[in-house]
């Protein structure tokens, strides 16, 4: 942790020195101190737009997790769906979202709906894949045991597979968080009247580059906070997943 901070400080110092000494224009590359100043000076407008983007990200992740878990469970329980729907899900990830985003905006309107669709689309797949792996990862001997206990398919799912897949679900959600912020910004740039993505898009042609960077800093900090928050929630909710198994003999 301390080493990570030291590296960050070192990189920032290098950036500062380059920005100051090379004589590069502020509106092309602002120094970190200028970004910090913008962060403070523009705090009102940043906060206002952050709230919009944060809502999109959080709701979008909610949509993605619900859709991802739904797809994973359906595919896990149905061999037919595994053959038919899974390839379509994979195909959905090859959609160039940058190009589709404006089309979705044109279709779904200027407000929240297209943002949720885009964030959901970029985020549900990691959740689906990791959850599906988690469900399929139940020990074969444990399945045998459940069968000799006359457990039905659903009981095995409920008592063994589903709880066992929760850590994988959390891993998928952590991956999703990182891309959700990018998805929200992309969606805003495709058509929006507020949000940090919109702010960045406006700031650059107005030569307020420091403000654009400040918005990026806010977005990154938000993503890191979400990531850490998920980690914490996972440790709280699934304490058993973080203990080395069979350490005591």
């Amino acid at each position, binding site marked *: 942790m301390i080493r990570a901070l030291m590296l960050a400080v070192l990189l920032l110092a290098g950036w500062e020195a380059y920005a100051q000494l090379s004589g590069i224009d502020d509106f092309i590359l602002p120094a970190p101190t200028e970004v910090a100043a913008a962060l403070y000076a523009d705090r009102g407008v940043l906060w206002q737009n952050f709230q919009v983007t944060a809502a999109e990200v959080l709701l979008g992740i909610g949509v993605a997790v619900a859709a991802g878990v739904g797809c994973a469970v359906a595919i896990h329980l149905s061999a037919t769906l595994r053959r038919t729907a899974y390839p379509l899900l994979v195909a959905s990830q090859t959609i160039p979202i940058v190009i589709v985003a404006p089309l979705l905006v044109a279709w779904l309107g200027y407000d929240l709906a297209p943002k949720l669709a885009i964030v959901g689309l970029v985020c549900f797949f990691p959740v689906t894949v990791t959850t599906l792996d988690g469900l399929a990862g139940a*020990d074969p001997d444990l399945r045998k045991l459940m069968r000799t206990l006359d457990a039905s398919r659903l009981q095995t799912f409920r008592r063994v597979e589903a709880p066992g897949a929760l850590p994988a679900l959390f891993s998928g959600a952590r991956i999703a968080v990182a891309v959700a912020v990018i998805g929200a910004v992309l969606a805003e740039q495709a058509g929006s009247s507020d949000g940090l993505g919109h702010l960045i898009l406006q700031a650059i042609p107005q030569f307020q580059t420091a403000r654009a960077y400040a918005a990026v800093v806010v977005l990154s900090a938000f993503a890191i906070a979400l990531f850490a928050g998920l980690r914490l929630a996972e440790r709280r909710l699934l304490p058993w997943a973080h203990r080395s198994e069979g350490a005591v003999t």
Partner: protein
Amino acid sequence: MEAAGFSYRSRRGLVHALGGMSLRAAPGEMVTVVGPSGCGKSTLLELVCGLRSPDAGRVQADPAVYMPQRDLLLPWSSALDNAALPLLVRGVRREQARARARPLFAELGLSGFETAMPHELSGGMRQRVAFLRTLLAAKPVLALDEPFAALDALTRAQAQAWLADALARQPRTVILVTHDVEEAVVLGDRVIVMSPRPGRDLAEVPVDLPRPRRRTDPAVVALRERALEALA
């Protein structure tokens, strides 16, 4: 089980796991099966449990419950809930299931560990909880797949003692598969020696010795030698 045969396809082609394997266990009897590794011992138990059907011959068995080699306790459930799993699966209410599992904890020296999570238990204790889970399945036949293979020698000797003890109190028909000839003689009423794959019964060694048996008892040692000879 009479002249049962079983083959399955693997990536390396057809595997004849069992061929002409015969085994008979009387109610309440403990039959131990020893054989070289890969002789189809696990397949034998899968047939007994009805997890697979034989390609040849005939398998007839009362309902059996399977106890795997590793304890495979559910890490998110307490020891008590793990033991009560068969009851919960059968639809018994949680409180009732726990009430029925609790007295058995004392019998196996697990009092005070009811609410412990699996990772808080030692390997030997985990195996005891796994055995309680097997008992609570309330099936007439227990199919134990090298249940103590993962334990160290000292813990294993203790485990054999509590197993014999628990079965004396709650008699069941037991098929115990092991690669440890000594364990087979110490625990079994009869020892069946299996051939290498495709596995079949090579020899039968009756063990008419009083319990508890000691591994150093000359009679046990003699029978162990007999079984080892049959294996070689």
